[in-house]
């Protein structure tokens, strides 16, 4: 008797058995939610499975999507202060359930000390990738600006709320052209030659890590609670 594997996979929302080369690191928030649920189960409590208390949002599926984008190496540096440009891309096609996105948090980890030598301040610009207007244009360009942020010193992971964007992408997958990330160095041009930027920016490129935490609510499994009058 062969256990019908596909039944279990279907149950998990998978098409085939995953065969990862290596397991991805699990972010602390997912560990925390899991541990809290295990404690609740051990104590016989019955928590609301459609509410993520740790994040304060409704939802029953949490996903951490790795960035599948790429760095851009323009022949001519667009600004003297430009340090790096990257397209961030998150594949949302795995979201098959007719779920409602209730949270989308982009996390950018610039590395613990990768830019501490750069100088006084970094500036970070996050935009939507401009949708292609014609055939043949291959270089992604920044479109609508989502965030502009100064980063005066290394401060761990930077988080951005992308709820509206992610909800739009799940409804209209063809709109998902990715995000355009540009990091600029606010430098004193008199004291700093542009060539000096090369090495720290290369370090930043190596250490930069982006991920998208997505919470979805499956209406089939999470029916709206009836409100008492």
């Amino acid at each position, binding site marked *: 008797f062969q*256990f019908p594997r596909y039944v279990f996979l279907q*149950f*998990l*929302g*998978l*098409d*085939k*058995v*995953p*065969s*990862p080369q290596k*397991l*991805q690191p*699990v*972010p602390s928030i*997912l560990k925390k*939610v*899991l541990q809290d*649920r*295990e404690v609740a*189960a051990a104590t016989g409590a*019955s928590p609301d*499975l459609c509410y993520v208390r740790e994040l304060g949002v409704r939802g*029953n*599926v*949490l*996903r*951490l*999507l*790795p960035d599948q984008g790429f760095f851009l190496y323009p022949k001519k540096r667009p600004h003297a202060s430009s340090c790096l440009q990257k397209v961030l891309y998150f*594949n949302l*096609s*795995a979201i098959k359930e007719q779920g409602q996105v209730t949270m989308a948090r982009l996390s950018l980890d610039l590395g613990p000390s990768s830019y501490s030598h750069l100088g006084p301040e970094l500036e970070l610009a996050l935009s939507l990738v401009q949708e292609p207007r014609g055939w043949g244009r291959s270089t992604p360009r920044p479109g609508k600006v989502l965030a502009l942020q100064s980063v005066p010193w290394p401060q761990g992971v930077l988080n951005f709320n992308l709820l509206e964007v992610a909800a739009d992408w799940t409804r209209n997958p063809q709109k998902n052209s990715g995000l355009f990330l540009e990091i600029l160095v606010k430098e004193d041009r008199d004291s700093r030659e542009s060539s000096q930027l090369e090495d720290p920016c290369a370090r930043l490129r190596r250490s930069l890590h982006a991920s998208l935490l997505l919470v979805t609510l499956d209406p089939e*499994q999470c029916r709206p609670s009836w409100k008492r009058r």
Partner: protein
Amino acid sequence: AAVPAPQASCKHLCHRHQLFINFRDRGWHKWIIDPKGFMANYCHGDCPFSLTTSLNSSNYAFLQALMHAADPDVPQAVCIPTRLSPISMLYQDNDDNVILRHYEDMVVDECGCG
């Protein structure tokens, strides 16, 4: 007329049995990050008419057992889960996404005749 009570020893009566599902045994540990397995349990045992009222039974199970005693074509009440609890699973899919999902009714906590 009095219905003869079938003989059933205590160990054959409907109750919860331990069943641990080990993901490693199935090779699923390569993509299921946590848990490594879980105590799913299962229900098994007899639901004799004489004891349906004491085996955590539904009223319907009692009536069904009564009907079975009168007419053997009516199936006997069966031993089923009466209380289930959820588990959460953390796994990785083919796109390297790490997913935490909650699944209801995965662990049998109590059994009864139904």
